[in-house]
């Protein structure tokens, strides 16, 4: 396999990981979101579910194109197995918000970096997705702040959920950042600082795991 093919293969794997997580976030936003803490939260969760599933569809279709699949695209009936454990295991509102916030923040950092790619068609694929995703992050971040300052056991449980998923997300970003094929083939800029940006974004939550990450 040539270097270029290896680069495309790595990029497809990156896109599929993002798509799988968005597919599962969409699924969890429907399953958990319908019993959100209030009507507004529930309506927003269901609307965002459609958004996340739409983002997943766009990314899966992009993968089909990169693989040279012609004609009508296959229907997506499930994720390809690359979704984070912390997303698949979302089981309540607190873990949903922790996953939605951390995973979309990480995805946003990666996709923003791909906009600096030397591949001209990247922007035309994801510009709208990035814009829509920002709204999801703002929503999740505001809920994260609310849960952090809530009463009783909620802040502690939220911190646990955040700590539970941060390691996995951070490890993925570190792996992507160290993938030389993505950089040499121009899918990501040289010496891209994904983990650094992620820590910066989540600094205000100052979770134990984030603090200990080197």
């Amino acid at each position: 396999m040539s270097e270029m093919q290896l680069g495309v293969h790595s990029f497809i794997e990156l896109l599929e990981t993002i798509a799988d997580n968005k597919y599962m976030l969409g699924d969890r936003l429907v399953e958990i979101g319908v019993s959100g803490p209030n009507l507004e939260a529930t309506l927003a969760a269901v609307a965002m579910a459609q958004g996340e599933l739409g983002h997943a569809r766009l990314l899966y279709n992009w993968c089909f194109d990169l693989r040279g699949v012609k004609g009508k695209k296959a229907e997506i009936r499930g994720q390809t197995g690359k979704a984070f454990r912390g997303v698949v295991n979302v089981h309540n509102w607190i873990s949903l918000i922790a996953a939605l916030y951390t995973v979309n923040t990480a995805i946003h950092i990666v996709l923003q970096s791909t906009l600096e790619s030397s591949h001209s068609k990247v922007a035309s694929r994801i510009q709208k997705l990035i814009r829509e995703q920002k709204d999801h992050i703002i929503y999740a971040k505001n809920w994260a702040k609310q849960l952090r300052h809530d009463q009783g056991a909620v802040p502690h449980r939220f911190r646990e959920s955040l700590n539970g998923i941060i390691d996995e997300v951070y490890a993925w970003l570190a792996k992507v950042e160290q993938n030389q094929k993505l950089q040499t083939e121009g899918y990501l800029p040289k010496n891209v600082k994904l983990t650094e940006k992620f820590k910066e974004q989540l600094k205000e939550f100052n979770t134990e795991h984030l603090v200990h990450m080197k």
Partner: protein
Amino acid sequence: MEKVSTDTQKYWEALKEVMDPEFPISVVDMGLIYDIKKNGDEIDITMTYTAVSCACMEWIESDIKKRLLEEEEVKTVNINVVWDPPWTVDRLSPEGREKLKYWGVSAR
């Protein structure tokens, strides 16, 4: 709407008959159509959608093809969906804006 060349004007007009399935506003007035090019008996449409998660994509594309294929000289319609520049309400035509207002939908 961009300035259109005279040889594609009739196709822009034709697409004003293709309605968004969610609102009775044409895909042209919604600002979904970015470009129309004619190449022999083929028409190339460059378009976008209001949201990546639009549930009506196949429906709209099918309606666009069906309408353009009603033109005698058109044998093939190719649709290229792009997401840059992203759609915003600024792409609505004044007519589209008025119709949304009539239906009680904010277009600011």
